[in-house]
């Protein structure tokens, strides 16, 4: 199965460096629970005597609260059916927290973060503005970002910045392009099921 970089690289024209790192759902690591059954299996793994019932002694102290929550017949034990009911009810609850990304400042923001000397900062901003893509942030570069050394913007920045500053400039622009992918919703799989 082709995933991530492999797929993107396979489709990228020669000389064009793919920026899309993840384009398909990543494989699930072994043992990673994704379903209700997996939760039930995990909790039942504490059933030391394999009688399909969980007593307080069998659960870690931090998990013993689930017995009180699910013990419908009040016998002090969580049996398999009670656990299944509890897990189904939990799955029905929806939780969501909205995280709003900081508005992107695009390449001028990247330059600002470098904390260059005032003179160098002005020159870097001038270069960036001269090469500004039509849509402010390099969203247009998202799907296929050419290798930095082939782009005039990077060539000029390379002449201006020292080695460390240039390395940081390149790293920041790469992060910026990946962030843009998330905004465009083209990174799949890595944003998990809680993002609904």
């Amino acid at each position, binding site marked *: 199965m082709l995933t991530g970089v492999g797929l993107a690289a396979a489709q990228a024209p020669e000389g064009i460096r793919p920026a899309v790192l993840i384009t398909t759902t990543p494989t699930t690591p072994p043992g990673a629970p994704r379903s209700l059954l997996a939760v039930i299996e995990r909790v039942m793994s504490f059933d030391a005597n394999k009688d399909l019932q969980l007593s307080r002694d069998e659960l870690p102290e931090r998990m013993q609260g689930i017995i009180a929550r699910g013990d419908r017949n009040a016998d002090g034990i969580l049996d398999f059916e009670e656990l299944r009911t509890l897990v189904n009810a939990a799955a029905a609850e929806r939780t969501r927290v909205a995280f709003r990304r*900081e508005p992107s400042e695009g390449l001028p923001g990247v330059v600002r973060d470098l904390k260059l000397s005032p003179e160098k900062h002005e020159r870097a901003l001038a270069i960036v503005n001269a090469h500004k893509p039509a849509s402010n942030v390099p969203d247009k570069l998202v799907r296929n970002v050419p290798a930095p050394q082939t782009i005039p913007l990077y060539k000029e920045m390379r002449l201006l910045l020292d080695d460390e500053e240039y390395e940081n400039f390149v790293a920041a622009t790469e992060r910026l392009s990946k962030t843009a992918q998330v905004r465009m919703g083209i990174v799949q799989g890595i944003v998990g099921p809680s993002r609904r």
Partner: protein
Amino acid sequence: MTRIFFGFLLAVVFVLNAAALSSSRLAAKSKLNLPATPYRYANVELPAHFKQPGAATHDNTPADNPLSDHGATLGRVLFYDTRLSANNTTSCGSCHVQAHAFADPKPSSKGFHGGLTDRRAMPLVNLRYYQRARFFWDERAGNLEEMVLLPIQNRLEMGQDLKRVVDTLARDAAYPGLFGRAFGDREITEQRIGKALAQFVRSIVSYQSRYDEGRAHAQSAHDDFENFTRQENRGKALFMRNCSTCHMKDGNEHFFVPTPANTGLRGDARTADGGVGDVTLRATDLGSFKSPSLRNVEVTAPYGHDGRFATLDALIDHYSDNPIFDPNLGYMIPVGPLTFTASEKVALIAFLNTLTDRTLLTDPRFSNPFVK
């Protein structure tokens, strides 16, 4: 036969006396040293950036347990009293160490019988401003008043019976008066013990770091701070650009992540810890953990719920260099590895170190009041 019986009786009496003596020696070894006028815990003047619009909604102080100087003083005494453990050896402060922002500098904490916990003792800084008011790594405690009593009763941590604590404190010379000043009468109850401890913990607020000094003179957290070096401002810019969406949501400068998060730590063969999912029983919560405030992060190593990251470098490497594939990854790692350069990592750590509040780490208001 009679000789044997009396011999046995003598041995029992000797053992009981020795135990009682040992206990009284423990108590006698330390003396409670409190100021004549209580320290100020309530109504402390906080910096302006703690008073941004909406900041008040982050305060989880309940209406029935407002912070008072006498209440927090009582809480401080309880926090450091080893008699809250079954064998008089362990207090809350044994694992929550002030010099480490009330975290344990070890990956596992040692319980009253020497057993080791499978999770770290969390830092206790600025918990008052954790809006969800849910506590522990798995957020199983629904409020601070409940949270503070659970380690006391935990079989591994302090192993104590709360009723026994109440009896012990009622017989003590100092406690009835301390409860009287805190609550208006001298009655000692389990609920009041919880309230006083919660007040003390809520009073532990970090607000005097170099970050706070710089922030006081800046219009915005995004501006360069006058008191920062270039590297620190560079680290702050990197943090704002790449980390603040979660660690500083809506400009919250307590540096909490506002909900538990799965940051790819679940592949943990050592403890097979399901985190929040073990409590909520939601599949998508498996591997999620509450995140402590980043304030004082310099002194709260090791990091992670199981202390798997020994240093800040190792922690940042986790987010920087590792492609993290986990079906439960939420909003946390939307761009995969952040691929920080070496100098970016150094700058980030320089910034994080500005969040250290040396005043808090040595403040006598939060120190052990029992002196030898």
